[in-house]
């Protein structure tokens, strides 16, 4: 066992740190406004120009073939530098790993390079008005058509869909609860999109109404009827490593302990957050090692999802207490509102605790 970085890993860290120091922009407007979305998309293109938007992808798709450890190093530097949120997150961290694993060579060659530069920005389309935590109850359907499928139905809480170019999600191709679902990818320009303002007042969500949108067979991801299994592999990366890397929490914890220097009770709570952020970081290095050795992490990702989402909320709630009315003039307020969503999205923490209890601990259903 060792925790030492190789010289190449250290060199990579320095390269990333130096580049970010020269290029990270001053705070951008919210990515959930038209203007902010465009600014974040430009930032993604700038990152891609330095081949830093998707470092872990193969070079042919715009990455550097970086290892998981190097990707974690990138993330630590990225968030420590105060760089912008990733508007392409749903694509690069959710869809792309699924394409790498289940997609065809043609799909990868067509979609991944455009995703890496944010030419295409992807939104997820999982939930429906009557299918949230119980996702497999979804009723949006795909009907067979010549050379493809026609999508019908109603999706909601689609993050980034107000301004994104493309979407991906599950649609029913038969009545079997899990085996009747298929994974589709589609452009959003012919979908009826109704933006939904989130708690911060900006259009972070949208409703999507499908009225016969044609999707060719080439835009089905994986086999027909395999959508649930494929999506679970995606959400497993969403809950785990890909969506919320430790770098953002260690960066927040570092800022928090600097903020909490006065009252010893609040300073103690900040120290606990700092320890937890370190714990998540170290745990992730151990997980990365296991993944690199070919292991699957499976249901254990649910433990990470609960841990980081509740840590993030605890850190921001503490900052609210520390700052009082001054919070509104700082990025902590936006961070707090963002952190409040963490225990809800990617499978609520109640669902995650059920998964941990039943599939990790073996308690009865």
């Amino acid at each position: 066992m060792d925790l030492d970085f190789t010289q190449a890993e250290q060199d990579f860290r320095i390269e990333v740190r130096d580049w970010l120091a020269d290029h990270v922009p001053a705070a951008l407007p919210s990515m959930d406004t038209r203007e902010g979305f465009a600014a974040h998309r430009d930032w993604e293109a700038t990152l891609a120009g330095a081949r830093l938007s998707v470092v872990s992808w193969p070079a042919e798709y715009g990455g550097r073939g970086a290892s998981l450890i190097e990707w974690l190093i990138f993330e630590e530097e990225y968030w420590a530098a105060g760089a912008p949120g990733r508007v392409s997150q749903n694509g690069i961290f959710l869809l792309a790993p699924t394409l790498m694993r289940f997609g065809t060579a043609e799909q990868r060659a067509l979609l991944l390079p455009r995703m890496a530069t944010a030419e295409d920005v992807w939104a997820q389309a999982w939930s429906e008005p009557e299918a949230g935590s119980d996702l497999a109850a979804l009723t949006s359907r795909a009907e067979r058509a010549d050379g493809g499928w026609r999508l019908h139905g109603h999706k909601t809480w689609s993050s980034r869909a107000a301004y994104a170019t493309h979407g991906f999600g599950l649609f029913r191709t038969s009545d079997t609860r899990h085996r009747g679902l298929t994974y589709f990818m589609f452009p959003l320009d012919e979908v009826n999109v109704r933006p939904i303002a989130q708690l911060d007042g900006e259009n972070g969500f949208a409703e999507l109404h499908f009225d016969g949108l044609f999707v060719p067979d080439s835009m089905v991801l994986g086999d027909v009827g395999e959508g649930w299994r494929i999506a679970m592999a995606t959400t497993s990366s969403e809950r785990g490593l890909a969506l919320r890397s430790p770098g953002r929490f260690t960066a927040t914890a570092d800022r928090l302990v600097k903020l909490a220097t006065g009252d010893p009770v609040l300073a103690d709570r900040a120290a606990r957050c700092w320890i937890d952020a370190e714990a998540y970081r170290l745990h992730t290095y151990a997980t990365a090692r296991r993944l690199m050795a070919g292991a699957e992490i499976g249901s254990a990702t649910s433990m990470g999802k609960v841990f980081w989402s509740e840590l993030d909320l605890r850190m921001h709630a503490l900052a609210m207490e520390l700052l009082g009315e001054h919070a509104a003039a700082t990025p902590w307020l936006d961070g707090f509102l963002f952190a409040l969503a963490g225990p809800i999205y990617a499978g609520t923490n109640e669902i995650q605790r059920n998964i941990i209890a039943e599939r990790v601990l073996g308690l009865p259903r």
Partner: protein
Amino acid sequence: MNFAFTDDQLALAATVRDVLRAHCPPESLRTERGPAWAQLAALGFFSVLVPADADGLGLELIDLIPALEETGRACLPGPVVETAVAAPYLLHGTPELAKLGSLRVTVRFDGHPHVPDADLADLLVIGRRLVSRDAVRLAPRPGADPCRKLFDVAYDEWTELPGSATRALRGATVATAAQLIGVARHLLDTTVDYARARTQFGRPIGAFQAVKHQLADVAIAVEFAAPLVHRAALSLDRPSGERDASAAKAAAGEAAVLAARTALQAHGAIGYTHELDLRFWLARAWSLSAAYGGTAEHRARVRALVHDAPRFP
């Protein structure tokens, strides 16, 4: 970067686990003060950290961590951490070092209130003084843990030890944190078994979400405390060593205390008795979370040191 235990480290833990299953079963905690000690000594367990030129294995603290977790899981009584971890560092440069494999040693570091398991010890280290068993008078102190008895000691003869106790205290802190992880794992496993077996309202109580979610929270706490302990063992002699040891002890203590609280609640009244073995692990969670500095003290140290040293890694 290879943050995973080696086959050798895991094999040592598996051997220790087998020995403890055979020689430190739960019923022995009621009748014996030092079960499995002779078998562990025969295995060389207590000389793992003793340098090779003093007849030890000359290994590092990290090599012993999974095995220490097993001693916590089995609730092994006696001065395990003091003998296996603190003593090799404290007795460095003394003739006693070469005898460590078969001696029982206990320790009271300066500023700490009592001596654990002094009734079992052949040698005592009090501050920087080495005291033999024959030269010491013991006064038992009240304590929560029947298998980790606390004492005050009086003595008239001693030998002054060279060097500093800093490394030994830090090592003992990390080793105790490793034991706490093992204690918490046992408490979780036992409680999951109980929640699957115990039925009320016609269902196992583990089928109720109120129980499930509490046990899930214990699983999460243990899962994320463990890597802090492993890192602290690796950073023992690094600039971040003190901070990392305190982070590990705070998190492991908190996880074990949560595991104990949840275990007791899920067991209900039967858990609140002397009849069930559960009480030994509850007591160990409380006694070890307080040993070598409680959670609040270690968190305060983390707070004070947080920006003093670079992160490791």
